[in-house]
């Protein structure tokens, strides 16, 4: 009986195990191998040792700029997204009439295609005739060239990305807030705790697992930003919005440098890997009740 069951187990997991081997493990190993070659459509392939990594770290200023831009994007997006999401979730938790409308509306961008969202914002942020600059003109102000400005363009992309996905973290937090047992609040109010105290001492610790998970997912997602950059800025102006995945795309699929692109891709993988490890270890210490 048991032996029989064992084979069922293997059978049931086999498609996913095969998929894992063919579409995740295999490619990641191959990417690692490719990163040591000068694999390209335009040349014969040869083994180049650490040249690609050396090029990235020592000879390619654009690579460092790309890393910097990616971190800038993450550093802007993650806190903004989480705090806005948390704020909205706290507001939505009140069972006020009509609150469902707000929840639905705020969640709508999440189900909208990122491509559409970015296109619409590219149009809205167009210089002079875009909606925002037209609005500013009504107020007698001259708006900047939002998407052709070395300092402003990245913040614009960050804001657009926050608006796109804030609804996701919002509903995650909302669900977590609903799961907090009422008695905790009652206890807090009996103790005469202020709203702020209740929030920081009761609510936040209790929903910390959700906050933490949202943090991980949002951070990792932000390191892989691509679509909004591709559509809204194309990496520009200059190289001010080149981010890792955009650079990988450009090197691999526009300039056919598969070897170099693999090296950058592997560096991205390594960063994500480290972050995951770090977060797992922090998670063990910090999070209150983990099942």
């Amino acid at each position: 009986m048991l032996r029989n069951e064992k084979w069922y187990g293997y059978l049931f997991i086999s498609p996913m195990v095969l998929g894992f081997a063919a579409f995740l493990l295999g490619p990641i190993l191959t990417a690692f191998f490719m990163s040591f070659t000068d694999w390209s459509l335009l040349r014969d392939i040869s083994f180049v040792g650490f040249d690609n990594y050396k090029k990235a770290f020592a000879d390619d200023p654009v690579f460092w700029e790309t890393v910097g831009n990616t971190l800038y994007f993450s550093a802007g997006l993650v806190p903004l997204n989480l705090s806005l999401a948390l704020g909205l979730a706290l507001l939505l938790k009140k069972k006020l009439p009509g609150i469902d409308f707000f929840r639905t509306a705020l969640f709508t961008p999440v189900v909208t295609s990122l491509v559409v969202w970015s296109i619409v914002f590219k149009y809205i942020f167009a210089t002079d005739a875009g909606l925002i600059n037209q609005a500013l003109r009504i107020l007698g102000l001259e708006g900047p060239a939002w998407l052709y400005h070395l300092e402003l363009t990245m913040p614009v992309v960050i804001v657009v990305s926050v608006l796109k996905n804030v609804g996701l973290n919002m509903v995650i937090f909302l669900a977590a807030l609903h799961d907090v047992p009422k008695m905790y609040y009652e206890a807090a109010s009996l103790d005469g705790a202020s709203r702020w105290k209740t929030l920081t001492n009761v609510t936040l610790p209790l929903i910390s697992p959700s906050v933490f998970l949202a943090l991980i997912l949002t951070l990792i997602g932000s390191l892989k930003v691509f679509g909004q950059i591709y559509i809204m800025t194309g990496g520009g102006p200059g190289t001010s919005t080149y981010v890792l995945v955009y650079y990988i795309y450009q090197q691999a699929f526009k300039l056919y440098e598969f070897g170099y692109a693999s090296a950058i891709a592997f560096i991205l993988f390594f960063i994500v890997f480290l972050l995951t490890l770090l977060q797992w270890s922090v998670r063990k210490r910090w999070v209150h009740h983990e099942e």
Partner: protein
Amino acid sequence: MKKITTLLLIMLLIATVLAGCASNTGNHPAKDGTQGNKGGTHSDEGSGGAAKKQVKLQFSIWGNDAQKAMYEELVAEFKKTNPHIDVEIMTIPFADYQQKLSIMLASKTAPDIGWLAERMIPQFLESGQLVDIAASVKEDNEYDFADIYPSTLDIFSKGDSLYGIPFSTPPMLVYYNKSLFAEKGLKTPTELYKEDKWTYDEFLNAAQTIADPNSGVYGVKLVGDWKNWSDALLPLVWSHGADLFDADGTAFAMNTAEGQAALQLYNDLMFKDKTHPKPGDEITFDTGKIGMYTGRYSYVSKARAITDFEWDIAPMPEGTHGKGTSLGYAGYSVFETEHPEEASAFLKFITNATSMGVTSQYFVPSRKSVLESDVFLKAAPQPSAESIQLAVLDQMNDARIAPGHKNWQQIDVKIQTLLDYIYTQSESVEEVLSKMEAEVNSLMK
């Protein structure tokens, strides 16, 4: 045990269905199985003398649906005389065309024949992925090879070999909003041109007069897409006596006093005179808010849809070194294929005088007989035959094809990236040009 078998079968079935669906809706010749995408049927191989076996060609374009429909009609015509050759048209958008084609050529899944733009040709020519059609076209009297403007063939030639035939050579020209010119009581570019006074000074003057920031009207727009710097800048650079590359095409040559003057002019239009929309602006000529737009002749098909104002075309204005008219360029090439003969036959068919007459409804033909015919001049009520004569035909002799390089993709990205420092007003024209010189030169080796 029976259940396990059932389960296995179901999984297998699903897997097959998935794979099947994928390849069926996928690229057609994938159905041919391992034989690959060359579009031929197996029976074709080893057929020896009896060459009339059924062959299927793939023909790639970046055109729109209307152009595709036009080709479908031409293909139907072609089939009447070549019943054994099927042609399937594949559309790949222009922005990705070169990269997608490179990748398909590398994986041996490329079309047999297709369009190429001037900037793409050097790469494919260098890598030896184009088929020499010299013998086939030159030795065929009926084809009348001599009718094709020789200057348009240079880019496809290498010694005695010929790797393609151009079908579209639209010169850069000025589209102007006649209504705006009339409103301001200005002489139109056409009038000035006829008086031999159509210079950059007049051009700037008109731009100044027309521009009205309060109602969002601009005097001039040189760019369509902000990433497409070459269409915007080449005529300006050439007319000021500068050039993008040196004569051998081995070095960046724009970092000169003339090049600076040209770029400075562009810079000032945007930021000093403010007669040109600022970077990131999305206004197009057909909104009626642009006095003059410099674009290729191919834009007429869109302009013809304009109903709200009067418009016309004129030649580019005269600078210190002529008009610097640049020539857009597209040709057909036969790619590495298992069916070079059939592909060449089709290429010859779509570039013969009759077919080029048909395609001239969208493209400026490279055959003299077609270009000067009523078929082209009177294809549509607008622009008038006279305007076409002035702005297109009369300019053909002096117009130049944009330069190319085998590393064009890299160079293109580099120049576009560096130009952004002018667009963002963060660096001066001189600084940008010297950076361009250094970085582009390193890509041209």
